[in-house]
């Protein structure tokens, strides 16, 4: 249809411009060629085209029989890996793992093609088979194959070696492989989340930095809870976290290496520094510095320790976040009266306001895919999590309620994690939601949890 529209435009343009006769003749000739072309196309298509239009998205039915133990002692880990994969795929909302009780065929050997008819019978469209084998050198070998049941094709297959204690990571990596092959997008299962773990009574809440796998397993505490910690953020290198801590005196931005436990203050500024975030290359930290009644954005190079001021306004500029290409930042500012989201070049310069809805906007986060900025919106007595395109269009609210805050993107930009506080005597807990607003899921944590920050993919 496009060529047809073009001809219309061409034509009207010619009419307006009143070109020479020759131009008109040639224009008409080209029109004729174009339309003639479409005629030919139309008649050349032998088979009649039947449009099968948009239907509903449906989770893909997938069968994941227990991985085969390579040696008799591998049964436990084989089942564990299978369960982690099943849980990951199910929580993504894009897959519908079929109950193992329905399986007709028992997979005993993954080196031969399965009997696809018996998987078709239970309506599986994809099938995962795998094997876990303890190697003589003590390592664990994981193999898996992903099959398309309808066509009988193997879609992908991999094997990995790892030390046995990392079997969960292997399961996450396999999950990512399956996810990527069946959705066409990168996975996000092999990633971690840092968050603020909250325990104790509401008045004397102890807040500790904690780290866990994205599915809630392997929780590890990074601070002891003597000082209040807020807004942890992952470095793209995954080895470091930056966060804000109320120690003695002003709250400061800290850097913490999660492997070594080493801790340092970022810069030495007079006054309060807060809401830090890494640049995409992990070499710089951008943050707010309080100066009198207002705050401005600064960026500090972690190697040279040189600091650059990005904004200089009598307003409160805070919550900066880099675009994935590092060229622009989004941040929150009340320079227009109420807190709103602005976008400006990462080197400073004129800022463009992108949020214009009712209420106030805060905590903007740029998606790793670059296509959206997530925010917390406050208005009408509700806190909502939403996303908006960097040009200010396409705003959509994903969830709203009494208190939702602090969105952070999964490494593939498809899922958001945030925390929700129901109020009362309870405490906050973590949730994930797809950027379409579907599939809201609670993330299991040992206690109350807030301020999540998703790591990039580990591998």
């Amino acid at each position: 249809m496009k060529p047809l529209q073009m001809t219309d435009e061409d034509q009207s343009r010619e009419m307006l411009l009143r070109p020479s006769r020759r131009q008109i003749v040639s224009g008409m000739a080209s029109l004729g060629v174009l339309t003639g072309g479409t005629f030919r196309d139309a008649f050349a298509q032998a088979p009649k085209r039947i449009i099968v239009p948009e239907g509903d998205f449906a989770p893909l039915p997938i069968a994941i029989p227990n991985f085969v133990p390579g040696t008799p002692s591998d049964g436990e880990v084989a089942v564990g890996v299978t369960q982690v994969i099943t849980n990951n795929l199910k929580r993504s909302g894009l897959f519908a793992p079929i109950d193992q009780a329905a399986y007709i065929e028992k997979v005993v050997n993954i080196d031969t093609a399965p009997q696809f008819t018996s998987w078709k019978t239970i309506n599986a469209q994809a099938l995962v088979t795998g094997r876990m084998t303890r190697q003589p050198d003590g390592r664990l070998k994981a193999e898996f194959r992903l099959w398309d049941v309808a066509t009988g094709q193997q879609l992908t297959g991999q094997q990995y070696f790892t030390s046995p204690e990392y079997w969960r990571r292997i399961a996450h990596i396999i999950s990512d492989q399956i996810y990527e092959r069946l959705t066409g997008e990168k996975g996000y299962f092999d990633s971690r989340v840092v968050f603020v773990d909250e325990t104790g009574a509401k008045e004397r809440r102890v807040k500790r930095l904690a780290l866990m796998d994205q599915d809630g397993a392997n929780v590890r505490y990074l601070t002891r809870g003597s000082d209040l910690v807020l807004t942890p953020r992952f470095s793209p290198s995954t080895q470091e976290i930056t966060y804000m801590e109320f120690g003695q005196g002003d709250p400061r931005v800290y850097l913490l290496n999660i492997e070594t436990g080493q801790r340092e203050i970022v810069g030495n500024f007079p006054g309060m520094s807060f809401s830090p975030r890494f640049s995409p290359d992990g070499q710089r930290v951008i943050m707010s510095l309080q100066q009198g009644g207002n705050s401005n954005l600064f960026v500090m190079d972690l190697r040279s320790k040189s600091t650059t001021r990005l904004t200089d306004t009598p307003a409160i500029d805070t919550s900066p976040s880099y675009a994935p290409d590092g060229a622009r930042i989004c941040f929150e500012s009340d320079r227009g009266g109420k807190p709103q989201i602005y976008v400006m070049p990462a080197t400073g310069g004129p800022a463009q306001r992108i949020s214009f809805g009712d209420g106030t906007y805060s905590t903007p986060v740029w998606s790793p895919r670059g296509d959206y900025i997530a925010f917390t919106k406050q208005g009408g007595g509700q806190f909502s999590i939403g996303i908006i395109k960097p040009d200010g269009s396409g705003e959509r609210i994903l969830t709203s309620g009494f208190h939702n805050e602090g969105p952070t993107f999964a490494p593939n930009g498809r899922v958001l994690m945030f925390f929700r506080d129901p109020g009362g005597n309870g405490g906050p807990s973590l949730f994930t939601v797809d950027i379409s607003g579907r599939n809201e899921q609670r993330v299991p944590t040992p206690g109350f949890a807030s301020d999540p920050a998703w790591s990039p993919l580990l591998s």
Partner: protein
Amino acid sequence: MKVKIDKTLAASIALHVLVLGWGLVSFSTKAFEMEPEESVAVDVVSADQLAHVMAGMKSGKKENPKPLVEKVAEAKPVEDAVGKITEKAPVVTDTTPPPQPKVEEKPVEKKPDPPKPVAESKPKEEPKEAPKPIEKKPDPPKVDPIAEALKKEEKKPPPKPEAKAATPPPQPQKPKERTFDQSKIAALLDKRDPARQATTGDTLNSNAALGLSKGKAADNSATWGSMFQSQVERCWKKPYGGIESQNPEAAFSIRLKRDGTLEGMPVPEGTPATPYLRVYQESALRAIIECQPYNLPAAYFDEWKYFAPVFTERKT
């Protein structure tokens, strides 16, 4: 000079616009892409019955008593009466008369009518021709009971004067129309106006329904196409591609056997450019394979034995 050039240019542009515009409309590819259509609950009709219903009535005349009457004209008869009947016969009080008598008489004169079937190509003509006789007939029929024979005699005289329009001309006219004689066309136009009024008024009787000029009775792709859609969609688990529209589209050409199963693997059109499009295409392929055999009307096997399903997100 300029003025002249402008005129010719304007004329040529206008003509081109007309022709191209017409071409765009009438040749637009939509004719070849069936829009999504909802299946409608219908009675089960055998192919024979369907064919019977669809068949145009070349020889049959009055099976359909109420064919294409857009305005069951009460007013029109009156107008007609004023226009022509006054001239013809003051005798006639123009009561929209018993249709049946007409029926009886029509056969008599309808020997001229048989042209109607011939006229299929241009249905409009038929009404014109048929109506005129009808009009003339009605006048006499009113008196039917009294003397049919006399009226017949009377009728013949009046038709002939106008008859150039009606009985004798039809046969010669048709060929002429096809050659596009301007003089003839003018004649036709003159006749049309009165003829139409007459037809609408009189059509209460009969006008053999010959079908629409656009009629595509033979093409039932909309029917089996939507049947295919609804069946294949049951098996289609679309990959979720996010909220940004990539406008994915996956087309295949497939051959089906008479029992509705695939004759071979569906052949995808083109290779997908992105991982998501590949996944999208695979999901559609899976659906096609998984949903066979397809239950499609056997009568149109020739149409669905080879076709191209297009899976798309596009909103038309």
